[in-house]
């Protein structure tokens, strides 16, 4: 079983990398000019360039090797090493720079550099965009006629990959708020949780009890009503229910505040009540059907017959036997539903103006705040991967047959 768990953990790695790839590709290369989308139609070219630099869109897209320098503009200066980890150089090592040239996108760094350690260093000395005003120490004689960059240029892909694998994605700033995403998430999560956690727990309890009830009364009117209820709930567009509930209970009847939030003390409960109620109502539809099927499978299995033959009453059979055994698919289904809790209900939070993550994401979409949409997509996917991993491992612990596969 341990072998299975280890293998399962290792299998998660390529999937996480895949998610990284999807996120980067989707938001950097598929999107139609993200800079223009963010800046709007009236932005000047200079403004757009600045935004592109901020987004890292001015760099080569994927990989670029060995870019020949077309022009040599200056020669004979020294370069102080600022990246001591590269090529065994140490900080403070000084090199004679042979040329500063034009790369494929603007003036950037270095051509061939002859250093005191006796080797020739061909490189851009890092990021072409960032090193534009390169620190050149003093005028010294050096002559070199040929210059070529043989190191791989830093690309937009690199920096994003680096951001993600070093978990710097949490520090990426929202373009609109100029605050790290992580900080915003921490700020917005409580409101989402205040709606989602109670709604989720109540819905789960309702789903299980209704499913068990329907399964117990299989084929009778009660079963039909419960099944019909779940089918009807699944068919209603959620947005209509939100709008209607807000209008009817908030505006017409005045039972609940129309929209808004207060985080002080227990004030939030006043605002959370209606959204929680709607979430529960809309959330039970799919679960009831699934769990009812599960429970029916259990009710008609041999061990239940044995339990009944032993003389247990219906309640004991249902709650100690059927429910317990039926819980495995319930747990799997529940765990995979957890990431959506973090996000909160996008539309629900938007309509009721709850300052949660869902609302924040919708706002980011409306504002073309690319970093936020990208960050949220990525973070939630990773959480999802990890939760699936946990649920699979839990599953092997509950059901040892799985590890044989």
């Amino acid at each position: 079983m341990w072998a299975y768990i280890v293998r399962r953990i290792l299998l998660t790695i390529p999937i996480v990398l895949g998610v990284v790839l999807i996120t980067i590709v989707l938001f950097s290369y598929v999107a139609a000019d993200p800079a223009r989308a963010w800046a709007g139609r009236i932005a000047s070219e200079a403004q757009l360039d600045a935004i592109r630099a901020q987004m890292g869109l001015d760099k080569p897209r994927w990989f670029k090797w060995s870019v020949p320098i077309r022009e040599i503009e200056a020669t004979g200066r020294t370069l102080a090493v600022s990246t001591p980890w590269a090529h065994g150089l140490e900080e403070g090592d000084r090199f004679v720079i042979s040329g500063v040239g034009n790369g494929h996108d603007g003036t950037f760094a270095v051509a061939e550099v002859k250093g005191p350690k006796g080797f020739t260093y061909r490189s851009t000395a890092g990021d072409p965009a960032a090193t534009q005003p390169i620190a050149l120490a003093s005028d010294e004689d050096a002559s070199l006629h040929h210059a070529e960059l043989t190191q791989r240029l830093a690309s937009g892909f690199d920096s994003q990959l680096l951001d993600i694998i070093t978990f710097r994605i949490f520090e990426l700033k929202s373009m609109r708020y100029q605050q790290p995403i992580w900080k915003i998430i921490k700020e917005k999560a409580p409101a989402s949780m205040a709606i989602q956690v109670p709604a989720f727990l109540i819905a789960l309890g309702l789903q299980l009890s209704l499913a068990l009830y329907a399964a117990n009364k299989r084929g009778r009117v009660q079963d039909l009503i419960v099944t019909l209820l779940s089918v009807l709930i699944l068919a209603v567009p959620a947005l209509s229910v939100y709008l209607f509930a807000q209008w009817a209970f908030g505006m017409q009847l005045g039972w609940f505040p129309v929209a808004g939030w207060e985080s002080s003390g227990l004030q939030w409960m006043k605002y959370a009540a209606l959204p929680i109620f709607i979430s529960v109502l809309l959330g039970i539809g799919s679960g009831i059907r699934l769990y009812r099927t599960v429970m029916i499978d259990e009710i008609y299995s041999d061990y239940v017959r044995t339990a009944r033959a032993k003389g247990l009453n219906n309640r004991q059979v249902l709650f100690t036997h059927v429910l317990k055994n039926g819980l495995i698919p319930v747990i799997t289904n529940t765990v995979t539903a957890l990431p959506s809790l973090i996000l909160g209900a996008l539309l629900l939070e938007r309509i009721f103006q709850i300052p949660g993550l869902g609302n924040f994401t919708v706002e980011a979409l409306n504002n073309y705040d690319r970093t936020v949409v990208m960050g949220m997509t990525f973070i939630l996917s990773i959480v999802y991967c990890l939760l699936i991993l946990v649920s699979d491992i839990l599953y092997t612990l509950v059901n040892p047959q799985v590890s044989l596969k």
Partner: protein
Amino acid sequence: MTSTTHDDAQSLRPPVQPGAYDPATAVGASPPRSLWRDAWGRIRQSRRAMFCVVVLLAYVLVGLIGFTGVLSNETVVDGATIPGLIDRTIGKSHQPPSWTHPEDGGISPSYWLGLDFMGRSVFWRLVYGTRVALTVALLASIIEIVIGFTLGAVSGYFGGIVDALITWLFSTVASVPWILLMISFAYVLKNKTVWGYELTGVPSIVLALGLTTWVGLCRLIRGEVLKHRDRDYVLAARAIGLGHGRIVFRHILPNVFHLVIINFALGLAAFVHAEVILSFLGLGVTEVPSWGRMIDDAKLELLKGVWWPLLAATVMIFVFSLAVNLFGDTLRDALDPRLRGTD
């Protein structure tokens, strides 16, 4: 000539003992029925399913009105161009529903469901929205099925490294929460120019939906093809020298196609609901009326007590989803006997 072949066929059959059971001549024996005939028989027996079929056919007919162009065609009256019925202002804004024309008193469908905030007929916009909804659901399903089936079949049939790659791909896509993935796709595809063609409204959401929903089908088909790969009929097809493409599409496909159909039927409602979400987020259809747009517009209208556009679009979606889901359930039970009897 024909009679001899008939005789030959007769003579090839083993002699039948008098009184023994012979399936071909047995009294009351019905000819063998295909899966599809059998399924249709079961569906026809279910009054609920037949009612759903009628409802869905009505939707298709209503959708076809939108396709004819009568609703969107501009007309020229007295030298002035008047927009089509869906965009024409025919009265005061927010006029409540009435059976009759407010001025001449004759019965006029344009006023049956009232007018929206620009004085346009909710009825005709709803009819046109049916066209949009059906188009989106149908085209997105086609993309989903083509990608899901092809990848799933290739993965299950060839196995090995191809299988590993495709499994990795769909596991990865499945790891991104669907609603975010769909929104992200719609977000990046909006107004994007592909091969000189600007993606607006319908094409971009069709792509966003189709490209993000194939995972379930792919996983299902992969598992199923994996089972069929080593069956005798596939071995026989391989033995007579058929190519891989022919084996997959001519021989395996018919044996797993019922799963595709079930998936298609049960997925239709999800596409319509997704269109509402995208419309609300400003990523949906913008140039023509759609159900999602009508619900989205209603968020401001409702504050003024204007409930009819919201109710009309909601009922349209509700009835459609209900019919599709109930029909899909019956279809699933009829086509996939393993799942029978759980409801």
